[in-house]
């Protein structure tokens, strides 16, 4: 039972991390109608920035804050220099152009930081595990990830639903010309939204960094999962992304945790170990395919379109 709770926490933590990545993606996708494959590159940059700044300042928290700012700036610059020109174009153009950007960023990082990858070490107070239930120890840092992501989710909800900026964003998404005609600087608004999305991706990257090493291409596989999340959740829907992310995180983790034992009833031990991870990955895509077949607009479609 404790094992099951622990695995659920693992799934929740992974899901929330996916949410951070997916939230930025779904904002950009929903509002600017831009398919940004290079979102994973911003995730990677967040991690690299954090590792670099943490080493400079000798402080994990300070490094993380600087990294957030840096990803925000890079994101806005990227929007102004390149991606802005892709608005209103075919989705195919987005896929191809941002696919090219992935190659570019991977090589750029290799040029600047070298091929070896980096590591980001945690301060002592985050390393040791805590006993959250009698007999159940859980890594403090993973709890920190869960709490941070929940706070961000709340922040996003308030921002989009309760503030003037959010109102403008929602207005701009549903009718660009009209909002512009009312005297709102749409270009600036879009740049800000993109920067916010980039910072969220950077946050996901830098929070993942102490668990994984910081390396080139780290954003690519998780990016596809983030896309799955926003498709299941419904494009543009923060709420949908939140629920879908946790769903995907739980399926992935629970599948990997318990499928091998189930499969061992019918397969050899070695065969089960090979098949189980593949099957849990397949379940995620199966879920997405089923959702799309039954509800082509995702679970929580944004009605304003």
């Amino acid at each position, binding site marked *: 039972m404790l094992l099951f709770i622990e695995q659920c926490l693992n799934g929740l933590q992974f899901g929330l991390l996916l949410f951070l990545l997916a939230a930025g993606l779904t904002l950009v996708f929903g509002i600017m109608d831009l398919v940004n494959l290079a979102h994973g590159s911003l995730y990677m940059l967040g991690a690299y920035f954090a590792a670099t700044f943490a080493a400079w300042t000798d402080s994990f928290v300070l490094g993380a804050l600087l990294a957030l700012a840096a990803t925000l700036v890079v994101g806005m610059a990227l929007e102004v220099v*390149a991606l802005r020109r892709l608005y209103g174009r075919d989705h195919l153009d987005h896929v191809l152009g941002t696919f090219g950007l992935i190659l570019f*960023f991977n090589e750029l990082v290799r040029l600047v930081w070298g091929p070896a990858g980096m590591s980001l070490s945690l301060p002592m107070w985050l390393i040791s595990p805590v006993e959250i239930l009698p007999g159940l120890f859980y890594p403090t840092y993973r709890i920190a990830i869960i709490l941070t992501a929940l706070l961000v989710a709340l922040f996003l909800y308030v921002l989009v639903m309760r503030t003037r900026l959010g109102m403008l964003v929602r207005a701009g998404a549903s009718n660009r010309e009209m909002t512009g005609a009312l005297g709102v600087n749409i270009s600036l608004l879009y740049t800000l939204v993109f920067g916010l999305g980039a910072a969220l991706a950077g946050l996901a990257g830098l929070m993942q960094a102490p668990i994984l090493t910081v390396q080139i291409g780290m954003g690519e596989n998780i990016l596809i999962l983030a896309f799955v999340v926003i498709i299941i959740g419904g494009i543009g829907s923060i709420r949908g992304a939140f629920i879908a992310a946790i769903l995907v995180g739980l399926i992935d983790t629970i599948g990997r945790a318990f499928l091998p034992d189930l499969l061992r009833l019918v397969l050899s031990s070695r065969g089960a170990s090979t*098949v189980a991870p593949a099957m849990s990955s397949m379940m995620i895509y199966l879920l997405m395919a089923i959702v799309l077949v039954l509800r082509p607009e995702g679970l929580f479609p944004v009605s304003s379109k």
Partner: protein
Amino acid sequence: MTAALTPRNVVIAVLMLLLAAMPVYAAVTANTFLVTLFTRVIILGIAATSLNLILGYGGMVSFGHAVYLGIGGYAVGILAQEGTSSGFVQWPVAILVSALFALLVGALSLRTRGVYFIMITLAFAQLVYYFGVGLDRYGADDGLTIRRRSQFAGLLNLSDRTQFYYLCLVLLVLTIYLVARLVNSRFGLVIQGARSNDRRMRAIGFATFRYRLTAFVIAGAICGLAGALLANHTGFISPATMHWTRSGDLIVMVVLGGMASSFGPLIGAVALLSLEEALPVLIRVSASPVFGDAAVRMAEYWQIVLGPLFLLVVLFARGGIDGLLAGMRRG
């Protein structure tokens, strides 16, 4: 279709002549690798041409087209592993299984539009990718070595590089011809009409879904054949063949070469694979006078040039290389 002496037709003619003469040149210079390299180019050209049928003409952006390369390849690999190396069995199976899978995917995903279509084709491709990863008996993640190329009862010897090369070239020409015939037929006009305005096509009485599904299945079947060729060519098949980035590569080839153009995908395949081989050399050669030995290291970063190139093509050369060539006539 009169064969006017436009720059575009000249380039295509020269390209086809070069492809036809490649094995001769390779034999003279004793460089068999050129044949190996261009066999690969031609096979990917077939795959890209099949994708062009649905993507270029039909407007269906399939982000999972490489899955058929994998299915075709695994059909050959698994049958070979189980002791059936006859190409008369392997190849039809590769085509048939690919077509059936395309039928299933198409039937489910053609109900969706735009980015949802992109993503659902990706989802199905990922499903098969992970299925391959879980194929413990056939090498799982590590892939499967194919020890013997497909046998054709002595009619063809695929282990002979030159014979295999020309077989692929003939199949490429046939594919290009087939796709060109298709798109210029009534069938082609319907799928092209459905690309620009599906609702109107349905309003005037065409069951566009059936037409588009048929195109989707044909594209899958052709790409499955390309997969069988590819597996024979490398003597190896692994799930990586159907990784989503490979589907991305196929899209790049089509767009780079020129969408909805008969020879565009082939030009794209030639251009992309040539760039991969040539960009490092170009960087090394052009940087060495200035940077000396460091140029060798710089050449490793060739993708930093390739990536933005895609973006530039998207922004400024939407018709791809073929579009640029066609534009040259107009001046």
